[in-house]
């Protein structure tokens, strides 16, 4: 709204939801906060282009397997040690070979070969095969560069609580269970090309609070106790739009879509999977559950904000109960007295396992319940099985025998996520992330080709084909996009989201009076 005089200093109170166990790690909750502390090599711009950050420029070898980054000079970690090529190389080595960050690892596995320091300011990263998404992938928060000196000289605890990077903020204190206090790094010199201002952070501090309860979180903005809140409850979104600056980020990568167990159970039959997709008005359900705030996503493979998104494929399987019933009839599932279909005396029971209260909020659970009702009408007996965190993380529902469908998402700025999620699982290269157990060699080859394709248009065409294959086979069923929503108080300007994963950036933000 333009008005107001910019101020220097002040403390931003930010209401986040979940508290991660450590500030640095492979969980998106960790990326959110480590983005404030650690800088990456490169960053992703609004238009999808790669922009300089710690690396001022880079070259790619003609065969696409060698990336040489030129580092910004005189950048120092907050422990005073230089951000040099050796440090960067050490970080890559740590993520890929020392188990330092398993998400970073799976993102660029098996393409990554080695990182070597050419000289103080040049680092060379070699790949086993050409992999153009590489640059995009390393814009993610998992690839934040830490001080090797600090890391190696300190204990696990310090590294967990206070990673040392060269970012706009340093971790001043972590009041566990309550908040992380980030203090401005006064010597900040390594802002990304996408930054809104040059120089250290304008505010003095950020209090990164963990407020699990949606009502409290959103209300705190209204009472002036916080300035920015994450995950505005959808019921409050309309209100938020009128009272605050709002930012909505549609996460790229795999949207919230169902993995469909193609290995055992009724969904081994493609027709049944398709009937399942036709059988529920997913769009209306999503609108009802999320109060029209979160967009429906028909494409199970990648979400609409991902480069190379196949919008055509997304249109398949619009709600058509008649077609669903016809498909089921053909597949030999006949309706029984109670409306539930059976085949060979077996009812058409679908075990739908979902992460209750964290992957799926109450709002998401409503969506499932609406669809459950609709599926019942066409003859599916869908059992909603809420899984606790302990169960999911413990791998209780990892085995194909334990579920028929399970919704989940995987954020990634690149369509190469398809490789992680849909790559066929083989004995020598098992893929535990392919939770549809969908082993389609053609699909695997298509994605592989796309990943290696230097020409962007060509690559996107291939990614598009891959999405089509998944959709045609109903190996997954789309549901909605993963969203990050933020509401920002009117007197706080220039809070922006980085493009790769939607993390808030506070180093450019300032208060107005």
């Amino acid at each position: 709204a333009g008005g107001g005089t910019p101020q220097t200093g002040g403390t931003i109170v930010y209401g986040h939801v979940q508290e991660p166990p450590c500030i640095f790690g492979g969980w998106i909750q960790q990326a959110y906060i480590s983005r404030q502390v650690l800088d990456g090599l490169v960053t992703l711009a609004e238009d999808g282009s790669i922009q300089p950050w710690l690396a001022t420029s880079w070259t790619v070898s003609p065969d696409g397997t060698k990336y040489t980054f030129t580092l910004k000079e005189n950048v120092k970690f907050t422990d005073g040690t230089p951000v040099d090529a050796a440090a960067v190389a050490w970080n890559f080595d740590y993520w890929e070979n020392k188990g330092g960050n398993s998400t970073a690892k799976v993102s660029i596995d098996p393409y990554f070969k080695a990182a070597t320091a050419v000289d103080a300011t040049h680092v060379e990263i070699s790949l086993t095969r050409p992999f153009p998404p590489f640059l995009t992938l390393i814009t993610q928060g998992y690839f934040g560069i830490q001080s090797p000196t600090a890391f190696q000289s300190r204990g696990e605890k310090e590294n967990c609580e206070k990673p040392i990077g060269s970012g706009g903020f340093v971790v001043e204190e972590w009041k566990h269970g309550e908040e992380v206090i980030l203090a401005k790094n006064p010597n900040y010199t390594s802002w990304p090309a996408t930054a809104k201002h040059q120089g250290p952070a304008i505010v003095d501090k950020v209090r990164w609070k963990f407020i699990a309860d949606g009502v409290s979180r959103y209300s705190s903005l209204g009472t002036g106790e916080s300035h920015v809140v994450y995950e505005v409850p959808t019921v409050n979104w309309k209100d938020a739009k009128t009272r605050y600056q709002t930012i909505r980020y549609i996460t790229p990568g795999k949207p919230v879509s169902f993995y469909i167990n193609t290995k055992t159970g009724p969904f081994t039959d493609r027709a049944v999977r398709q009937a399942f997709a036709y059988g529920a008005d997913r769009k209306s359900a999503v609108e009802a559950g999320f109060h029209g705030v979160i967009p429906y996503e028909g494409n199970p493979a990648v979400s609409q904000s991902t480069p190379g998104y196949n919008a055509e494929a997304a249109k398949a399987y619009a709600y058509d109960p008649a077609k669903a019933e016809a498909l089921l009839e053909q597949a030999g599932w006949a309706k029984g007295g109670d409306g539930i279909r059976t085949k060979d005396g077996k009812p058409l029971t679908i075990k739908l396992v979902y992460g209750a209260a964290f992957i799926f909020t109450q709002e998401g659970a409503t969506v499932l319940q609406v669809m459950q009702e609709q599926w019942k009408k066409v003859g599916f007996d869908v059992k909603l099985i809420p899984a606790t965190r302990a169960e999911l993380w413990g791998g209780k529902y990892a085995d194909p025998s334990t579920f028929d469908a399970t919704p989940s998402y995987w954020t990634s700025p690149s369509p190469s996520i398809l490789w992680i999620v849909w790559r066929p699982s083989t004995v020598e290269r098992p893929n535990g992330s392919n939770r549809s157990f969908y082993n389609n060699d053609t699909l695997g080859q298509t994605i592989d080709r796309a990943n290696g394709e230097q020409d962007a248009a060509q690559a996107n065409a291939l990614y598009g084909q891959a999405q089509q294959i998944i959709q045609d086979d109903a190996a997954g069923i789309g549901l909605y996009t993963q969203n990050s929503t933020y509401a920002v108080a009117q007197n706080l300007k220039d809070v922006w989201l980085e493009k790769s994963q939607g993390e808030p950036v506070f180093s450019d933000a300032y208060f107005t009076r």
Partner: protein
Amino acid sequence: MRYLLKLLSAVAVVIAAASVTFFAQLAVPGDRATTLMNLQTGQDRKWTAEELAPLNEKYGFDDPIVVQYLDYVTGLFRGDLGTSYTQKRPVLEVIGGQLLPSLTLTVLALVVAWFLALGVTLLTVRRGRFLSGLGATWEAMTASLPHYWVGIVLLVVFAVQLRVFPVIGGTSGWGTVLPVLTLAIPLAGFVGQVTREEFEQVLAQPFVTTARTRGMSDLAVRLRHVLRHAVLPAVTLSGWALGALISGAVITENIFGRPGIGQVLVTAVDTRDMPTASGVVLVVATVYVVANLLVDLAYGAIDPRLRRAT
């Protein structure tokens, strides 16, 4: 000698509780290394043996259970509760930071509950049909309130609408008011109910009539004579309540964004962070045991007859 025995038995109870937790968590299906891997990646999948090997190695998950247990218990005697798998910090530190807010919350809740309960009881027991009925109903009603419903209603009314208290006050003084009330109101109902029952019985005792025959006013009789007798059951209840509240406060912590041991416990169980979960139980059990020792002392102070019995 008797105190030494008491102390020993208290220590035994605490260690037993922690041990039960240790084994109970082992009995829970699912593999710890898998959980940790999934946790690190935000996944819910299976991992290969090689992928899990470094974690198994690091935390000794492959050691025989007896060895793991002995490690743990001997650690306890050295004052070492182990290191959190997920937070990489000593459990003592993980819990240490959360204990004070939890204790503050629960102790204050207990105190406030007592004041509410005694206030209502003193003013309403046997004070005419209407007042007594009102008091009894109030107690029964507040005792039936689900905690988080109270919390959310208090939050919306007093913090969001009236803005008397902060929404996310954390551990600040004002911020503690609503969380304390959330826990205290239902507890006050409980305490009130047992006190009322006892109060009614004591009011009918001959010594109360005797006090009246000396010309004492009703209020004075209640305060000087009856109260002391009537609080005994509520005192017992308090020992139990303190132990129960401290882990049960998780809901309140959740709503008001407060740190606390309840949150730690829930997260630890979710993430199969065994040392942390066992540590929390150890602490809660200690609080319980200490609270009950205090109850014993309070008993003795209130009713010297009980000093010998215990």
